[in-house]
């Protein structure tokens, strides 16, 4: 470890660094050049190591930098568009990657030159991710990959994918996996849009047929894929988006406004339901504020899981109540076009869209059922269920 020769980074010193950077770089210059320069100055993600876009600073200081750049009107790296890269691929590469891999991938990832996608879920392996069947077989100095992935957002735009594949079917399920960085431009990668109940195709199916990957694209050791994937998943769950909303800032605001402005729609028996939802929404909002205060004070807790669970249930119920409040009007849909939205707007489009889309909130990013298991075992310390699938060769498991 050794004591660093440099001063410890503080909010004040960061502000100075940003101001210095801005003095030397015109925010109106070429977007990509600006972002590359910001990365090279260690002002991309300040908690990353020097040389990889950061300064080894505390993570909680990142907002200081982001706010300073935003206030100066600097171009950003479309953080929502590259969310998978930022939130999942990057921390995994940082932790498990070789020096070459870090140097090759992190910069274009952060500057949004290269979009990433996640090739984990399969038709037969959803909640049970460690059951993936996509095979990767040694082929000289590389690997041949065959299989099918699903629920892959951004696959149609992605340059790279983080890929979990089975390299040893005779090993127990968790032991036979290896983690790869998949070249989405490689021959044999086919991306097909996957349409949802909303009519949209936010996600894709990805078919991998004899896809050849160089061994340099393996992340972590052969057979260590599960441990690497856990880094990815842990980071998926940590992410808490954006700033705290004001009161009625989310979906509840839409319902409350409809209730207020359309008295002719009100039904007496629905009044208490609206009040109950308002209470729950405000309780959840305050929970988010408290969680952010804890994170800012360097006291991370497991409350993010509570927020995801509560958020999924609440958005489903608020939007469902809104549709019923609207009556016949609530049964009108805007369109069933198979759009390919890149950003999810939970209060966008109409009530029926919101209601349908919210159904996905308890499935994507870990189902609410899996999340409840995790809360019960890791937060509350309740015992695991007896497992029948962990000591057996993967190929011999019933499926």
């Amino acid at each position: 470890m050794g004591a660093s020769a440099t001063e410890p980074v503080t909010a004040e010193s960061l502000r100075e660094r940003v101001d210095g950077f801005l003095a030397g770089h015109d925010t109106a210059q070429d977007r990509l050049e600006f972002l590359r320069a910001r990365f090279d100055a260690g002002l991309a993600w300040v908690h990353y190591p020097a040389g990889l876009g950061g300064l080894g600073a505390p993570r909680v200081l990142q907002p200081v930098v982001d706010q300073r750049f935003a206030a100066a009107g600097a171009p950003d790296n479309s953080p929502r568009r590259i969310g998978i890269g930022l939130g999942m691929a990057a921390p995994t590469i940082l932790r498990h990657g070789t020096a070459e891999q870090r140097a090759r991938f992190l910069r274009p990832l952060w500057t949004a030159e290269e979009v990433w996608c996640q090739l984990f879920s399969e038709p037969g392996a959803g909640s049970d991710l460690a059951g993936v069947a996509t095979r990767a077989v040694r082929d000289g100095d590389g690997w041949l990959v065959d299989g099918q992935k699903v629920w892959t957002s951004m696959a149609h735009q992605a340059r790279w994918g983080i890929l979990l594949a089975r390299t040893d079917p005779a090993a127990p399920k968790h032991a036979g996996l290896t983690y790869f960085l998949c070249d989405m431009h490689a021959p044999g990668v086919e991306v097909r849009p996957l349409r949802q109940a909303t009519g949209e195709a936010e996600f894709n199916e990805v078919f991998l047929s004899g896809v050849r990957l160089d061994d340099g694209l393996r992340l972590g050791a052969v057979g260590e894929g599960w441990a690497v994937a856990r880094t990815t998943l842990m980071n998926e769950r940590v992410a808490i988006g954006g700033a705290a909303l004001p009161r009625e800032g989310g979906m509840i605001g839409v319902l409350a406004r409809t209730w207020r402005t359309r008295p002719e729609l009100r039904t007496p028996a629905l009044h208490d339901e609206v009040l109950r939802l308002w209470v729950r929404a405000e309780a959840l909002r305050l929970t988010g504020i408290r969680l952010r205060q804890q994170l800012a004070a360097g006291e991370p807790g497991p409350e993010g899981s509570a927020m995801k669970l509560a958020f999924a249930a609440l958005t489903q119920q608020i939007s469902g109540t809104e549709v019923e409040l609207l009556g016949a009007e609530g049964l009108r849909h805007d369109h069933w076009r198979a759009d390919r939205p890149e950003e999810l707007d939970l209060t966008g489009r109409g009530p029926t869209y919101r209601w349908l889309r919210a159904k996905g909130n308890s499935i994507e990013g870990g189902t609410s059922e899996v999340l409840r298991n995790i809360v019960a075992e890791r937060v509350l310390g309740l015992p695991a269920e007896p497992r029948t699938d962990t000591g057996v060769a993967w190929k011999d498991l019933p499926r």
Partner: protein
Amino acid sequence: MTLDLRYTEEQEALRDSVRAMLTDHAGWARVLQVAASPEPDDADLWRLLSVDTGLAALAVPEHLGGAGASLAETAVVLEELGRAVAPVPYLGTTVAAQLLLHLGEDELLRDLAGGAIIAPAMPCDVGPAGPGARLPDVEVSTAADGSPLLNGTVCGVADASRARVLVMPAGGALFAVDADAAGLRRTPVVSLDETRPLCDLAMWNAPARLLAAGERAASALDAALVAGAALLASEQLGLAQWCLDTTVAHLRTRYQFGRPVGSFQALKHRLADLWVELVQARAVARHAVAAVAAGDPDARLAAALAQAHCGPLAVRAAEECVQMHGGIGFTWEHPAHLYLKRAKSAAIAYGTAAHHRTALATLADLAPA
């Protein structure tokens, strides 16, 4: 009066034959195809249900070309149609038939028994829990020959897109309007539930025929709406039963963690609770149609109770079906979303559960604070 809440043997036989027919002619791939097409419903299936089998006029007397059965049999057909989310205007036609029976409109009933679609021309959320308050303003004027003309707009009408005749409440009276009449325009609505899509009606001096006015019109309309709310509960019951059955079947064969997913206790308990609600929905739905069929003074309360219970149940069943199928249940290629959308549209049709609870406050003498 003690109403029999069981199914008769004949009704069970009817169910078997309807289910067999729908399995052949209304598989979900076909339903999805029709829903995604510009067609508002499945004309072939409707021909089968009306012209070929007479199921669409089960409760119309035999001398008018119907089957002379009761609403209790009609409800069994609706259970199966709900189970299949079949895209046919069966419910609207049945409610129209009830209206016409109350009014003694034999000729229209003969048309209906012959396969013509006749639909009540009201927003789909109008129910017995206070329909007047939600009926749109349609103005009645008089043509040179003294016959009535209608002017106005009615939004969100179900089962009317291919109707031949519309039964329209206007100015406190009931009118029959030829759907092809000059002065009437139907505009399809992009609907949440494309298996029971809505349309908007616009009228500029549309020629109409007076069916009834005053108290007679009001009581016929009210009785038909009570029947509609009662019958819809059976559709919701059938829909919920499909959702439960399909979810159970999926969870028995889907393996995760080396086990059938259906062996996980949290899911088992939720499905057991859903079944508990479904068992009660069956009693409540059968009670509602039995009360309506028998002209029981309790029919209005029974219908409100049925909607208060069965509407939310069907939505919950469809939601659990989507959730427990995981990702696959959220895709366009799996039928679950059709049931989800139908359940929600049915929860609004003939009044929401909240409307019916509000009505029960009066019917059960539980005044507000």
